[in-house]
């Protein structure tokens, strides 16, 4: 029995391991389009902004303390870069049964309170989150238009100091977009940060 259960557990862990490491898009991959409902009821996709040179996709939510700490920085990113062709699209990945504070009505409420100047869309089926391989919040994907496609140019954290924006010595997303805008390749294209897990439906 012990032997059987340990095999089952190993098999389960193996599958779990593959999902965590191999799923999702990587830097250089073509970005996956989506069609998700914004807090204003309109559907948003990568085609929504015809002038976009790229996007700053941020998987983020209402409830995660790290997401909250980064809200103002996400707004600042949009204000700085939307005009340069790189607007923010915030995607809320959490299942509302698992995380009631992240329900669509609560998203609407938060967007209004903070005056989000960017779309805040709900990934109700969690298919987009899974396809991108987002694992925690906030988790950023910088996309850059190349030809007719959007390519993934950066994956990871916004900066290297969640506690204090002004103390950050690396601003990864800004560095990435500044490089792309200048026609250069992104120096640091992958980073990791402590964050909240995505709350998956059963």
């Amino acid at each position: 029995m012990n032997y059987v259960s340990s095999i089952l557990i190993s098999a389960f862990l193996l599958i779990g391991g593959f999902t965590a490491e191999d799923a999702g898009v990587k830097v250089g991959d073509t970005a996956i389009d989506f069609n998700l409902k914004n807090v204003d009821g309109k559907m948003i996709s990568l085609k929504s902004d015809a002038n976009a040179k790229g996007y700053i996709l941020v998987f983020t939510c209402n409830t995660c303390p790290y997401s909250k700490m980064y809200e103002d920085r996400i707004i600042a990113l949009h204000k700085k870069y939307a005009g340069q062709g790189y607007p923010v699209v915030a995607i809320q990945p959490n299942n509302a049964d698992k995380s009631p504070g992240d329900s669509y009505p609560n998203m609407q409420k938060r967007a209004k309170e903070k005056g989000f100047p960017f779309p805040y869309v709900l990934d109700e089926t969690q298919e987009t989150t899974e396809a991108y391989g987002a694992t925690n919040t906030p988790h950023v994907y910088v996309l850059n238009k190349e030809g007719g496609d959007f390519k993934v140019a950066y994956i990871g954290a916004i900066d290297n100091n969640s506690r204090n924006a002004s103390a950050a010595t690396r601003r990864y997303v800004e560095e990435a977009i500044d490089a792309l805008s200048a026609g250069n390749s992104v120096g640091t294209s992958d980073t990791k940060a402590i964050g909240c897990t995505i709350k998956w439906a059963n």
Partner: protein
Amino acid sequence: MIHFTVMQKQILLCVLSGLFFWSCAGNTADQVQEAPKVIKWDGLEAVINKKSEKLQVINFWATWCAPCIKELPYFEEVNESSSDKIDVTLISLDFADEFEKRVLPFVEKRNLRSRVMLLDEIDYNSWIDKVDPSWSGAIPATLIINPSNGKRKFLEKELNEGELNSLIEEILN
């Protein structure tokens, strides 16, 4: 006048405290609880690389992380029942400036008896891969190391009841 022997007093204390009565059997004087402290990366590295007969169970958590708090009792149970062969270390990823305001009161309120250390390293990208390359940075996460046989397991997920014990069995043998 009633006189208690030392053992009777201990038993009485245990029964009265009620909360952790199952720990009475294993409670000996050599299990002095280490006070929670703030560490830098080298402090965590020392735990990860510890040359010890004991299995090292390292859990990454924070006071703000609901799924982390949910699984803490499993680690506490292992710490209470197997301290002769397992070291449990709870690595808090709360901010260092909230150690006294949030972490210490939490440890006290929950009566945590495992070793608690707050890792004060805000530049996450500089060390997450060093814990394990498969870690995205989401918590809870758990690292189990057997210094005797070199076996190692890292898991980025909330553990269910029984799952921690199965993992420990797997790494022990």
